[in-house]
């Protein structure tokens, strides 16, 4: 009997101890928080953490373009009906990024109905990519719909969604997905800007597009970390490097990148250079949205 008692006690103790140590890769919400090799290191890893490249939110990019005078133009964003046709995690990740940019563009331009449609597309693709925890409460969508014309409130809601997405990608070893999502978002933002800024008075389009070069550099470095995991990434890198080459060849851009006072450097793109850039962005974006 005594042996049975000891065995039972040992079983309870080991269960308790297992529960302590067994979930070290999960946070309090039960999400997997296994470290990624890029920005983290495991206990056994003796190589140490590696350099990493921060990618901003699609909302910030849209906000910066909006501050610079980017106006709304109906019909330029991706058709919301295409959401259902995106299959496979790569296409869906690109689609999520594209619709996230379209959502931010509509919100910042107070396009209520369009914003709600894009929010639904973002939610649908998030669910398909296993990111349902990002939208774990219906109240988030209801709050969005109720506040869609209140810029401060809706910015807060969108930044909350961004923050939850960042947590998801970081906690689930999905850095590659994060980079692909951002690729879609960045290309869509640049495509919209390249279509609308030429029609905007005093837009300083070349300055606006050259300003994005720092983000593009980070995106290319981050994508390079994942090119062996997804064959399509190598082609995406090649396409984006072409964009980088076009922007860098604009007179003043290299000086701006090296200058202590980049805001004082004059960037003077020819009409031909801007057309070439816009055409390349359209080509990449067309392949993405299909």
């Amino acid at each position, binding site marked *: 009997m005594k042996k049975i008692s000891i065995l039972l006690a040992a079983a309870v103790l080991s269960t308790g101890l297992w529960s302590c140590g067994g979930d070290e890769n999960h946070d309090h919400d039960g999400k997997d*928080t296994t470290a990624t090799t890029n920005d983290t290191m495991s206990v056994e890893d003796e190589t140490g953490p590696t350099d990493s490249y921060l990618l901003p939110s699609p909302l910030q990019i849209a906000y910066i373009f909006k501050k610079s005078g980017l106006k709304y133009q109906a019909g330029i964003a991706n058709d919301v009906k295409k959401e259902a046709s995106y299959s496979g995690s790569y296409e869906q990740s690109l689609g999520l990024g594209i619709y996230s940019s379209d959502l931010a563009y509509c919100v910042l331009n107070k396009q209520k109905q369009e914003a709600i449609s894009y929010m639904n597309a973002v939610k649908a693709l998030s669910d398909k990519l296993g990111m349902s925890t990002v939208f774990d409460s219906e109240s988030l969508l209801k709050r969005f719909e109720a506040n869609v014309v209140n810029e401060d409130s809706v910015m807060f809601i969108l930044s*909350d969604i961004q923050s939850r997405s960042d947590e998801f990608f970081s906690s689930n070893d999905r850095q590659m997905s994060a980079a692909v999502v951002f690729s879609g978002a960045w290309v869509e933002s640049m495509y919209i800007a390249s279509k609308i800024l030429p029609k905007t008075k005093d837009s300083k389009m070349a300055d606006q597009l050259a300003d994005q070069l*720092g983000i593009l550099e980070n995106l290319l470095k981050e994508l390079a970390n994942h090119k062996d995991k997804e064959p399509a990434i190598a082609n995406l890198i090649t396409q984006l490097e072409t964009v980088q080459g076009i922007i860098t060849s604009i007179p003043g851009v290299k000086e701006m990148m090296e200058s202590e006072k980049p805001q004082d450097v004059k960037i003077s793109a020819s009409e031909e250079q801007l057309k070439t850039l816009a055409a390349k962005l359209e080509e990449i974006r067309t392949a993405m949205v299909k």
Partner: protein
Amino acid sequence: MNRYNIFLTLLLAAVVATGFAFIQKSKDLCNPVDLKKKTEPAMKPYTYDSAKMSRLQFMKKGQKFSTEVPLSLFGQYKIVFNTSGMPKKVGINVYDKDKSSSKRKLLFSNADSLETDPVLVFNPEKHTRKVFVDYDVPADTLGLKIKGCLYFMLGYK
């Protein structure tokens, strides 16, 4: 041993196991949700843009790694570091250029900050294109295998 004694033994074991579980949980310093909550108040009135949590372990040799942060010439930014997930001080230095540049300038450092204040705020000057956050992890000379994490949040307005 009668049933009463078995019950008492099991109860004692359960209490001890629960205690162990509680202690282990309290040691979990690297919860991204908790770190975000602790960092957000310092970010106001800026809007959240992105965050990064870096897990690390002190090793026999010191380690250095960096995070490149692109900024827009047309935006205003705030960077908040939260070191509450690190049991030991880690050097944080922010530069205007990467480590290959001999001309790079130090923009921010936590060298003089106290370990008791884990939230550090840095406002990059307007018209800054990019900043390079360098982390300097000291060597683990005593072989304590200390591990923890650093949390970084970027905001804009």
